[in-house]
């Protein structure tokens, strides 16, 4: 293909006098740059570090409304009101996530149903305290721990026993 400047040069050789007055063609438009972007990341890994534990909760006598016992993702424990007493070591669940440095990782953890180990028909709902996300910073490759807390509501009608359940945790960039 002959581009336009080549045509102009040939014309000038053949008609030197004429091209002195020739108006250059007005064809080439301005360039425009389109951005092309991509974020390249390592796959995330998620590993369990420790379980959540609300310790032992002793229910008071009589009839009373529900009260909340819980622990935050940062480990701050609260033990309802005077109708309950709490003892034993408490801790939030912990998981370790690894991935690419300087990336924000979003955490998804739905509420958990805790089942009474003596009577599977008796359950408690654990409302999860989720930090929502963690920023890997420069520790993406080595990994970063994050906590998951939760709270339950108990009342005088709550059946005693050990309640357990499983978190369903997912992480995503």
């Amino acid at each position: 293909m002959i581009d336009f400047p080549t045509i102009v040069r040939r014309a000038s050789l053949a008609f030197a006098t004429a091209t002195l007055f020739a108006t250059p063609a007005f064809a080439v438009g301005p360039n425009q740059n389109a951005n092309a972007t991509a974020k390249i990341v390592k796959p995330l890994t998620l590993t369990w570090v420790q379980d959540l534990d609300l310790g032992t909760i002793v229910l008071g006598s009589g009839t009373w409304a529900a009260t909340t016992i819980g622990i935050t993702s940062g480990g701050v424990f609260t033990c309802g009101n005077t109708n309950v007493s709490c003892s034993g070591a408490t801790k939030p669940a912990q998981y370790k996530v690894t991935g690419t440095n300087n990336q924000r990782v979003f955490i998804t953890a739905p509420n958990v149903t805790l089942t009474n180990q003596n009577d599977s028909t008796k359950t408690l709902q654990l409302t999860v305290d989720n930090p929502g996300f963690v920023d890997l910073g420069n520790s993406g490759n080595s990994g970063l721990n994050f906590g998951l807390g939760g709270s339950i509501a108990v009342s005088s009608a709550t059946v005693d026993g050990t309640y357990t359940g499983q978190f369903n945790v997912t992480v995503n960039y």
Partner: protein
Amino acid sequence: MVRIALVTVLALSAATPAEAQCRLCSTPVTTHSEDAPATKVTVEIETSLNFDRLVVLGAGTGSAELRPDGSRSAQGTVADIGPRAMVGTAILHGEPGRFVRVDLPSRIELYSLSGGQIAFDEVSSDLPAMPRLDPSGSLTFRFGGRIRISGDADGDYRGDLPITAEYQ
């Protein structure tokens, strides 16, 4: 006879001489006057090409491709292309009905802030063989390409894809 001859001579002398064609009187141009564009053809980038997030397993080689029709594929170490990946879209503006030639580079490099470099090649578009501006003087087309990755290439990459358009 003589009288008639005199009349003829007078008539011939009074006649206006015919104008000869002058081919050098007008300013010569190298294009047909009807083809000379009044306005430039311009390129407007409506959407940038974005591969979103590429999840890369290990340090081998892999590629991710985004085609102009929006389809995508990943090969090798590239395990996944993010859901928000999108092809680029550009709009040409110019004289209605004019044929245009659009040039896209076949390959460019994308760079990260940390100095990483990956190749973006096999650039393609959905332009027809003879692109032509529509009656309103515009032509929209989409473009895509392939990213090739080798080694440990974490990071945010960016590059400029120059698009040139001119009348044919």
